[in-house]
């Protein structure tokens, strides 16, 4: 539906889609005129992280400590952003962000951790925890005007201890003897465009 917070564009897309109902020359496949869509993207300011996080070189040997520090630094940004938007989409794992960090780090430390999920497997719980951690960071990062998805993704996976932790998580799930952990480790934690970064974990 176009870029976020573009109500005019979204409405025109919706109207154009519903307008196709009047057509009798079906089936219909129409392109939506993308002039406005382009304008929205071109107007977007350059995004930067709302706070200065320690660079990767400072924490690479101690990512779990750096993760806790990042969370404390970013927490006020997330609170402000969520107050501004009036919503949060965090919560799919059922854990708070500190529980997520503990849970993921426990698995990284010991892949044979006991897990007694009622309706879900360890692999599924790890995936939802990873999804929530990303959402938490994205909500904090979205405070900055001009947010665009590519820049946030690049920042998360290449510059944050959270991204590094999820790369580490995926690398361990990939080599698990349990099939579901392997499947989700391969395809469910790290997007295709950033899979190559897992190699740096092994170095």
């Amino acid at each position, binding site marked *: 539906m176009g870029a976020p917070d573009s*109500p005019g564009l979204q409405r025109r897309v*919706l109207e154009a889609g519903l307008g196709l*109902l*009047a057509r009798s020359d079906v089936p219909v496949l129409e392109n939506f005129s993308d002039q406005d869509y382009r304008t929205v993207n071109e107007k977007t300011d350059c995004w930067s992280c709302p706070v200065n996080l320690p660079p990767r070189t400072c924490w690479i040997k101690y990512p779990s400590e750096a993760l806790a520090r990042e969370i404390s630094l970013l927490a006020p940004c997330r609170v402000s952003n969520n107050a501004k938007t009036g919503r949060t*989409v965090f*919560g799919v794992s059922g854990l708070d962000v500190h529980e997520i960090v503990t849970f993921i780090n426990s698995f990284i430390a010991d892949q044979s951790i006991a897990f007694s999920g009622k309706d879900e497997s360890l692999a599924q719980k790890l995936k939802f925890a990873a999804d929530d951690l990303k959402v938490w960071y994205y909500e904090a990062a979205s405070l900055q005007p001009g947010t665009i998805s590519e820049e946030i993704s690049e920042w998360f996976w290449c510059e944050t201890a959270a991204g590094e932790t999820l790369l580490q998580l995926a690398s361990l799930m990939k080599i698990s003897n349990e099939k579901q952990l392997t499947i989700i480790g391969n395809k*469910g*934690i790290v997007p*295709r465009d950033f899979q190559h970064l897992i190699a740096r974990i092994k170095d």
Partner: protein
Amino acid sequence: MVRLSDLSKGEAENLLRLPCPQFDDSPLSVAPDLRAARVALVTSAGISMKDDETFSAGSGDYRVIPNTADASEIVMSHASVNYDRSGFVQDLNTVFPIDRLRELEEAKTIGSIASSHYSFMGATEPGALEKSAKNMIGMLKEDQVNAVFLTPV
């Protein structure tokens, strides 16, 4: 809204590999005049209410999103990690244009909005959706819905 040229090479190639079926037949019914249409949203964004069960990969079932739902009550458990959800984080309407639909109702562009909307898990085999889709159609008919807007994610 995204264009192939906006995607990474891998994502674009993946989409181009998907089959594009041809249909020889026509729609089963005549579309209503929009001003008399009762419209529901059907999305494959894998969204659900916070207190509802989350989706799992390949799940063929659906979740009901009441029309009265507030954006802050909706979460996403879409299985695909390649689906960039930063737009959803910023604005629910990128995948579920409920605010825009309300505006169209207020402007009397459409007749009314359905009592409930429906969410499926994207990237699911179509065959796995058939039973749920038929069930959903019954619910839509019961709600007097005569037009749906699909947001494939």
